[in-house]
Structure formats: C-alpha cells, structure tokens
C-alpha cells in the first residue's frame, strides 16, 4: 500500500465514540488478503465516514430515533475470523426448510456455504465476497458500493469500511430456482459490533428467492449490527428478498437495503422486524427501467420496550415503472414504531404508478406509532397515492369471536393475525409464509 493512503486513516487522536473503537489497525486487519482495489474502497469509505457528521435527532431522518440508542460507542469491533463449522452442525440451522443453497454466518465470519449440486451445475454462484472479488472481479467491482454508496450515509460508509462476512450471490441469465437461497446470520458474542454485507446479482430473466434470517440469544450488554444489502435485478429478472430479523434482546440493528430493478424486472422485498431492542430498516427501491416493478412489504410486531424505525423510499427515475408498498405493524407494551416512507417521482418519470400504505395497530396503552408517508412528485402523468392509518383492536370484532366461545387472549391473537393477512398473502412464497406465521405466533404468544 502506498504511503499517501495513510492520510485517509483515523488519526491516533480521533474523537471518542465510534471512531475510537474502529481505528486504523482494525481496518488493516479487515484488508488482509484482499485485492488492493477492494482495500482502496474500504479506505475511501473510511475517509467518507470520518467526514460525515454524526447523525442526531436534528436530522429529519433521525428525528424519531435518537442514534445514540444504537449504542455503537458501547461495543468493540468483533474479530471477523470464524472457523468453518461442520456441515452437519450448519445444516441444523436450515432443518426442515427447503433451499437450493445455504449460507451460515456466525458472528463476524462465514461458517459454511453449501450449494446444491444441480444448482451449482446451472452456474449459480454463492461465495464469500472476498472470494468473489478475486474470482469475479468485474462483477463485484461494478456493483459493490454502487447501489448503497458510502456517501449516502454515515452508517453505510461505516459498513463499507468494515464489512466482514460478505456474501455474493449471482444467478445467471435465465436460471430459475424453485427453492430459495437461504442465509442465516447468527450472533452469540455480546458487546460486539458486526457489519454483514450482501451483494445479489440477478441475471436477465432469472427467477429466485432469498431468505435471510438474523437470530441470536438475548444479551445483557448491547450488540450493534449494521448490515448493508444490495440487490440488482437485470432485465426481466424476478427476485423476492425476505429479510427476517429475530435478534435477541439487547441487539441494536441497522439494516440498509438497496434494490435496483431494470427494464421489466420484478423485485419484491419483505422486511420483517420481530426482535432486537432497537431496529432500524432503511429500504430503498430504485426503479430504473420501463416496466420495472417493486412490491415492498413490511411486517413488524413490537412489544416490551422495542423501538422499530422503518425508512422506505420508492425512487422512480424513469417512466412506466410501478411500485406498491404495504407496511403493517402491531405494537404492544411500551413499544414504539416509526414509519417514514417517500415516493419520489423524478422529472420525466411519466406514467408512474406508485402506492404506499402504512398501517399500525396499537394494542396497549403505552405503545406509540408515528407515520410519515411522504410524496415528492415532479411529473404530472402519474398515479400516486399514500394512506396511513393508526388504529386499535376493534371491540366488535373481538366480541364476535368471543361470542363463539373463544377466550379473549386467543381472540386478540386472531384479530392481529387477520391484520397481517394481506401482507403475507402478497408474498409469492408459500413455504416461507408458513415459517413467518410460526415466528409471529411465537412472538405474540
């Protein structure tokens, strides 16, 4: 590495907080064994991270979530090294769930990657990101950090500098998978920070689903997990991406998802937030070709003192694309949920169809819901609408069910399930819907 690059690294007298924890040496250990261009990107992201101001509630996007809740100053950087584990042990994480490829990440490292032989034979690539950077340099160079750019935000820059356990998925042109690719990210190290990274490339006309599960035990000390995921769908590709967050107590989760849909591509996302103490999901769908379509679904159940923040963006950059968003959540205990969604229609993006719906169900006296459904429209030949509601359990519905001899608690569960029904109905992955139902049921309990 050239001498001049040292200038972009943290100075020894860097200010306290996140910068102190994520110092020079930590960054160098991340770069070990990587191609030089990849290290350069980390360094440049670190430079940007250092330049960007710390977010605070004074910023509109952090108005309802104090960034200090993420406790990044109370954690240490984890070691990215995790030994490969026995494939039989790894398989236990995927038991009973059909899949065409499986990735297990434990703490900061990739523990196992397994691709079914028939899938491998059709050219599907599932690798760690550093491996892919060597084997498929041009693809990784082109797309990594192109859709979630370090300059887009302090935490994206932080992840771009420190990511580990990166996963690269490429499904070539015309390949259709009938079983999803599954990723499980498991953390059991308290007091640490993790930066998972995912890059998914869907070739022209390919069709597949990805299910990412995030899980951990409960922690007494904070864990900070800041993940970035980029999904790029080429022409006429059809991709479903499900991110299911079931962290244990104590985890502070920041999940950034950027999707790009090209001409006639269909790119659907479902973001499920059930676990963690604080969870913030930033989901940005960019529609970049005529005929592109994104269904954006969200589902959350918060209880206790959980704090969930969803920030979404439907970015219509070209004409003749459509997007439809539906986020639904139920709030119990002293929980708090924020939804901020933006439909952005750029000049010239005529014939845009963009819809956005946010619905909250408040189950307890002390829960709080905030909705900010925003529109910025700079073209006139569009159909755009948004709707937001905040409501409570309908006493008449409850009464109706209870009058059939069902106890109150059970009746409430049924109503909440009914509330989630239309989100689940829109996900074209029946097996995954069943798993989601079970996971939600376990939470509502």
């Amino acid at each position, binding site marked *: 590495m050239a001498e001049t690059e040292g200038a972009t690294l943290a100075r020894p007298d860097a200010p306290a907080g996140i910068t102190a924890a994520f110092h020079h040496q930590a960054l160098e250990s991340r770069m070990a064994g990587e191609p030089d261009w990849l290290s350069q990107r980390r360094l440049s992201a670190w430079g940007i991270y250092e330049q960007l101001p710390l977010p605070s509630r004074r910023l509109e996007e952090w108005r309802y979530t104090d960034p200090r809740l993420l406790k990044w100053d109370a954690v240490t950087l984890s070691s990215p090294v995790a030994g490969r584990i026995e494939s039989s042990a790894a398989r236990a994480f995927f038991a009973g769930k059909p899949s065409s490829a499986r990735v297990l990440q434990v703490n900061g490292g990739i523990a196992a990657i397994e691709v079914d032989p028939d899938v491998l034979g059709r050219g599907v690539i599932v690798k760690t990101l550093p491996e892919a950077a060597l084997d498929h340099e041009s693809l990784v160079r082109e797309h990594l950090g192109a859709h979630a750019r370090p300059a887009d935000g302090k935490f994206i820059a932080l992840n771009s500098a420190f990511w580990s356990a990166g996963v690269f998925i490429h499904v070539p042109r015309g390949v259709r998978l009938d079983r999803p690719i599954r990723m499980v990210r498991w953390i059991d190290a308290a007091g640490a920070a993790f930066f998972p990274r995912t890059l998914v490339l869907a070739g022209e006309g390919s069709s597949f689903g990805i299910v990412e599960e995030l899980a951990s035990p409960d922690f007494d000390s904070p864990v900070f997990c800041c993940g970035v995921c980029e999904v790029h769908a080429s022409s006429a590709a059809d991709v479903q991406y499900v991110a299911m967050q079931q962290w244990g107590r104590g985890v502070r989760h920041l999940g950034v998802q950027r999707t790009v849909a090209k001409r006639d591509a269909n790119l659907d996302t479902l973001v499920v937030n059930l676990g963690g103490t604080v969870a913030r999901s930033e989901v940005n769908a960019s529609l970049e070709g005529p005929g592109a379509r994104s269904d954006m679904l969200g589902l959350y159940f918060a209880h206790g003192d959980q704090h969930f923040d969803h920030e979404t963006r439907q970015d219509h950059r070209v004409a003749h694309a459509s997007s439809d968003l539906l986020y639904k959540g139920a709030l119990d205990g002293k929980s708090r949920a924020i939804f901020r969604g933006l439909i952005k229609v750029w000049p010239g993006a005529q014939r845009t169809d963009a819809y956005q719906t946010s619905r909250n169900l*408040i189950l307890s006296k002390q829960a*709080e819901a905030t909705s*900010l*459904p925003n*529109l910025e*429209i700079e073209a*006139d030949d569009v159909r*755009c609408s*948004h709707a*937001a509601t905040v409501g409570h359990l309908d006493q008449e519905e409850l009464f109706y069910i209870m009058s059939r001899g069902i106890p109150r608690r059970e009746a409430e569960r049924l109503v909440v399930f009914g509330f989630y029904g239309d989100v689940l109905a829109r996900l074209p992955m029946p097996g995954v819907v069943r798993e989601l139902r079970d996971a939600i049921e376990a939470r509502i309990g």
Partner: protein
Amino acid sequence: MPQNETVTGLGLEEYKYGFVTEDKPVFKATKGLSEEIVRQISAHKAEPEWMLEFRLKALEIYRSKPMPAWGGDLAQLDAVLDEIYYYIKPQERMERSWDDVPQEIKDTFEKLGIPEAERKVLAGVGAQYESEMVYHSLKKEWTDKGIIFESIEDGLRLYPDLFREHFSTVIPPADNKFAALNSAVWSGGSFVYIPKGVHVDIPLQAYFRVNAERMGQFERTLIIVEEGANAQYIEGCTAPVYSTESFHSGVIEIIIKPNARFRYVTIQNWSHNMYNLVTQRAMVHEGGHMEWLDGNLGSKLTMKYPSCYLVGPGAHGEILSIAYAGPGQHQDTGGKVIHAAPNTTSQIISKSISRGSGRATYRGLCKIYEGSDHAKSKVECDALLLDEKARTDTFPYIEIEEQSASVGHEATVSKIGTEQLFYLMSRGLSEEEASAMIVRGFIEPIAKKLPLEYAVELNRLVELEMEGSVG
C-alpha cells in the same frame, strides 16, 4: 393536441391587482430592524411598559433563533429583512365614518372591489391599509351585545386586562423565529371578543392591504370566543406588484372557550414577490369547535399551517386548505391538529393545484397524546398537476401515543385526464372551459364551504387562471 399545450400560459403573470397608489404615511420608521425601531413602535403606540418589555424580549428570541432549514427556500430572505420598513403608520386617528376615510384609500378599496354598499351588509369592516386599521365600524346591535371588534392597538388600550390575560398565550414568541419577529414589531390586526352565548350570523370581516414598497406587515390578531358563543371571521388580502421582495408575517391567536364555535376564513392573494410566513393557531376547550378555511393563491412563498390545539374533552378542529401554485410560486401549506384530551376529533382536507414551475407542498401534523381516549382524526390531501413541470409534495407527520385513537391519512396525486377533457369537449365545451370546469370540480368540496361572496370570488379567480390557458 399534446397535453402540455392545453395548460400553458394559464397564470397569474399579469397580476390583476397590481396597481399602486401614491402613499403618504404619517410616520415611517427607517429601514431594517433594531432595538431602537422596536422602542419607536412601542412609543408611537403609547403602549404600557409590559408590552415594550415583551417586544424587546421577543426581539432577543428572534435574533437567537436560526432561519428554518425546512420548508420553502429562504436563502434570499435575510437580505429582504434588512431592506424592509418595520413600521409605517398611515394615519393618526382611527376613522369612525366612511366619509372621513381619505379618497386615496377609498380608491384602493374600489379597485379591490369592495363597494361602499357592502359595508351595510358586512357587519363590521376593519380595513387594514398598511399597518393599521384605518376604518372601523361595527353595527349598533353588536355593540349592544357586548361584541368587541377593534384594531389590536385599541384592544390593548381599551381592554387592557382582557387583552393581557389572553395575549401571547396561544403563540408565545419562542414558538418559532417568525412568531418572535412578529411579537417584536407587530402592528395592526384585529382584537375580537365574542361574549358568552352570543351568536353572530353575519361574518366579521377585515380587508388587508400592503402598499408601501419594502414594507413588512406584521399583523397581529387576537380573538376570544367565550363559552357557547358562535361567530365567523373573514380575512382577505391582496397586494400590489413590486419588483423587490416583500414580506408578511402575521400571528393569529384564537381562544375557543367551552362549547363555542368559530370559523376563520382567509383567502390570501398576495402579489408574487411576497414572502408570507404566518403562524395561526386556535386553542380549543371542552366541546369547542374550530374551523380554519385557508386559501393560498398568491405570494412567492407561503409557509402557513393553521393549527388546532384540542385541549378540552370533545373539542373539534377542522382545517380546509386550498392552494394554487403557479410559475415561480411555492405554497408550503397544510395544517396541524394536536389532540390533548379525550374524545377530541379533527379533520384536515387539503387540495392543491400546481402549474408550470409552481410547487405545492402539503405539510401537516396529527399528534395524539396519551390519554386522549377515543380521539379520531382524518386527513385527506389531493394534488392536481396541470403540466409536466409542476411539482407537488406531501409531508404529513402522524404521531400517535394513544391506544384507543383512530387516525387515517390519505393522499392522491393526479393530472387533468385526457378522457375527462375529451368527454367535456365532445359536449361542445372548449378546451379552456373544460379545463376550468375540471379544476372547479376539484376544489368544489372546499369552495362550497365558503361564504357565498368568497365562493364566487374563488371561482372567478380560477376562471382568470384558466383564461388564455389553451394556446
């Protein structure tokens, strides 16, 4: 015919009310703002000491607050604020009879289309020419009922205790930068008091007019509606066109006591160089009913969000907002409802039209505090875009802390449909007429809530907008 041609040249480029009458003020402060100016204003009005102190404190707050970084583009505003006159007093005495009103001012009203005869219908006319009420009349039976409709200065002078008890209780100077500025230099506006149980059938009206170039208008209105009373207030304004920027920043405070009903109507048609930054808020007590009807057609930039603070059980707040943003205009408007008591209800309906480089922004807040059992709120925003350069934004904030609350928000964006046009034109209407009809239909839910003469005026304005719109 291509769509974009149907709506070009719709606009307010030729400003109908853009005439200027020669002004002869009695007193004109020097340009810009200073403690000295604030003292001069207070001295000129022969105010009590507490008001001077209030003004000076507000000036400090104004200076300490940063310029808002949200909403419209305020980058040029600092320069504007240095250039304006903070106080002009056009006449020394309040006029009691129409005959005493100077001819020059009468001419101005004439051009604005306020016929002399109208004052017989209008219950009381407080016409604001420049910074103060110059003409003020009140029907005898109202005086007998104990209704007070005075200039804000006379309100302070004649009813010092009533005034002091309520003044600045709804909008304190520290509320926002421009409320602070208004608190420091306010001049002109109305003081209205409707006694307990009194019903007023004919609306109280005030006409506003800014005349002198670079003159800021800091009107201040305080309205107290006592228990069980029922009244309506109408404010309309229009200003002549000038080349340099102008500035208007009003503060309107309304107190609705238990079971009282009140409606406040504004149609704002400032000239297109005006910054219009207004704070208007009503405190609504138990069983009270407040309705804002807010029309924004003129100005360069308007930032105005009429608010209802529902602080008593069963209080109701309603905001009907209509905005038209033509080329070069930004209407950043909307409404706020704050529920802080059980069984409170509210509704916001917003309709906006943007054309050319015009930008219409809905910005609103619905906040329901914990303990506001069974509060209900409904917000509806519809935007109509007249061509491909127009822009519309919707920024609603919905903050709910109460389990039993029900809140709904809906917004739609659309353009004039080719099919709708075709249908009307096949019935023999010209494209221009058809477009005007569609626009009228779009604003109709709000227009029909306006008093007749305002509905007529609004429809006339729409027609003016649509004239020559088809090239």
